[in-house]
């Protein structure tokens, strides 16, 4: 599938309009519609915005939760983006994160009595990445060798992952005597240090929150993705394939192998959600922990223009919305935190599917000026 805009829609706009103004207008349109919806349900938009900002950024605890949510968005945003760059649409982030959690959890459950903390955590992170990658590798293989459409297969794999995890958690991993479908708790050694503890060790006092070292891993991943895409020959070949498969073939890139590589990396990144949620917060394998982050990654990637820097910014915004939205729903019962989901949907719609909507207006504007 071509993710690149059709030719006629790409009548040239000046570079800065293309890169800065058009995406901003798209995001603005999405939030304009959000404002209309907020108005429809009878809430004062400005009051809501104020509460939301305070809820997201008003205290060190609030900021901590904002960054904790942002961690998940960074991982899935990067996962979607790296596949985008290869011209692939990975909608399977949800399932890859879920199965990544299985790998992560199994590694901990198998070794948490024998290995010291750092080694255990390293192993768990690698296992998460490996399982996430493996879950993405199957649709990748189906696309590369059997020509099955990766969009459809990754959707199906989400459901299969979900069914598999429900089965494993309620029949296999559930400890004897427990009624809830989840694994036994991890040992203390498998806990990712909370950011509060880390900062305390260097003398900075912040309120406790769910924020943990996975945030640092997410930022590191963003840098690593940037280096990979723009500073390695593999990333170069991957982007070439995404923009122009024929040119990639001409350049000697094996498209099948590159498809596998791109999807495996994408799946491994999505599994970062498992690291943040399971090692950082839940300390056991729980049901449904990906909670829509896999899909939200599409919004993050589109809004961040598939660039790691933009993705981190977009993830911070979505993290703030998530946290602020939660607080907001306490203050105004009519506003549920699902408002965040609405925003995600609108951002995907306006930054993705309707990305060319403002183009004629901008062309007219720019044209009149020059």
């Amino acid at each position: 599938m071509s993710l690149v805009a059709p030719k006629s829609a790409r009548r040239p706009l000046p570079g800065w309009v293309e890169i800065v103004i058009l995406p901003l207008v798209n995001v603005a349109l999405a939030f304009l519609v959000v404002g209309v919806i907020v108005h429809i349900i009878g809430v004062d938009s400005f009051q809501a915005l104020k509460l939301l900002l305070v809820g997201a950024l008003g205290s060190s605890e609030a900021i901590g939760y904002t960054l904790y949510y942002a961690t998940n968005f960074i991982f899935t945003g990067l996962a979607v983006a790296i596949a985008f760059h290869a011209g692939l649409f990975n909608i399977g982030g949800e399932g890859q994160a879920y199965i990544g959690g299985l790998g992560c959890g199994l590694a901990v459950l198998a070794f948490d009595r024998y290995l010291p903390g750092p080694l255990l955590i390293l192993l768990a992170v690698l296992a998460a990445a490996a399982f996430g990658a493996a879950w993405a590798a199957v649709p990748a293989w189906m696309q590369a060798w059997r020509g099955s459409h990766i969009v459809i297969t990754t959707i199906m794999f989400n459901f299969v992952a979900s069914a598999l995890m429900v089965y494993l958690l309620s029949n296999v991993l559930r400890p004897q005597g427990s009624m809830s479908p989840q694994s036994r708790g991890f040992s203390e050694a498998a806990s990712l240090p909370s950011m509060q503890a880390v900062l305390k060790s260097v003398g900075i006092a912040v309120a406790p929150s769910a924020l943990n070292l996975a945030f640092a891993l997410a930022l590191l991943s963003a840098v690593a993705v940037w280096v990979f895409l723009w500073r390695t020959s593999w990333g170069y070949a991957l982007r070439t394939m995404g923009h122009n498969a024929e040119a990639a073939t001409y350049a000697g890139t094996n498209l099948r192998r590159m498809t596998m590589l791109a999807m495996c990396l994408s799946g491994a990144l999505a599994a970062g959600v498992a690291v943040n949620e399971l090692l950082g917060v839940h300390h056991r394998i729980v049901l449904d922990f990906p909670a829509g982050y896999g899909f939200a990654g599409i919004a993050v990637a589109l809004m961040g223009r598939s660039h790691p820097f933009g993705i981190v910014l977009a993830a911070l915004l979505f993290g703030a919305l998530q946290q602020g939205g939660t607080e907001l729903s306490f203050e105004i019962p009519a506003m549920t935190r699902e408002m965040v989901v609405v925003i995600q949907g609108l951002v995907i719609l306006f930054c993705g599917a309707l990305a060319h909507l403002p183009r004629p207006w901008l062309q007219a504007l720019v044209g009149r000026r020059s």
Partner: protein
Amino acid sequence: MEETLTFVTLTLAATLRVATPLVLCAMGGLFSEKSGIIDVGLEGKMLMAAFFAAATASLTGSIWAGVGAGIVAAEVMALLHGVACITYRGNQVVSGIALNILAAGLTVVLGTAWFARGGQTPPLGDSERLMPIFFPVARDNILVYAALLSVPFTWWAIARTRFGLRLRAVGEMPLAVDGAGVSVGWLRYRAVLLCGLFAGLAGAYLSMAQNAGFSRDMTAGQGFIALAAIIFGKWRPFPAFGACLIFGLLDAVAIRLQGVSVPGVGEVPVQLIQALPYLLTLFLLAGFIGNAVAPKAAGIPYEKEH
């Protein structure tokens, strides 16, 4: 003997009941996909329709206002999809995903704001619901029959009418349609709107017939099962209908098999049966069982060359 017969009858009725929204959705999806517009947004259309149908039925007390509102809601979604994919030549999958997420959020947001029941609509009384017509045991409401009729109708419309011929052509080779002086865009809009109509009926069925009211995420992946059924039926109405029945049967059986040990196999995990529609579709897509070939132009925005 009589017991077996009752069991079979009840299972069949249950299958049909579960399959009804799948069938409606699949027939709607067929129109869209046949015209070359991929629709991964069936789920969202159905969910939105379910919400507005239940909300309207509850507020007005009118069944038909409810069904109508469901259709309108799904059509608005369909129109958005059409504007994004046909007029603005956006990515069809991105648009479908966006609409799914939008529906998942908006139904809860509006539901909470309007009814303050955690995203649910007030329970519908019998006078506000679609009730059985002939056999109360089978719960055969009008939309069950609509679903059954939708299959021959879809077949007939696609195979036997001018519209259907052009629809099939536009999904395979829009250039040929354009070359014949027929508007590609208008054809696709009509297909997308038909899809909205059927998805709207499916949504109304969920909240007004199968259940008595809307609850959050009540579609629970059925839109995607319908999509799987389309693929499984290789984009043909009757085979897709068959796939819906099989998937419906699996679902009906799954409920009955919970905790039951099958002789020689042991206990079959319910989750396996639930995942079976997806697994079967994946095997089909991988080319292990036959070959599913999508309409050739599906997913590609049409552009005139000059």
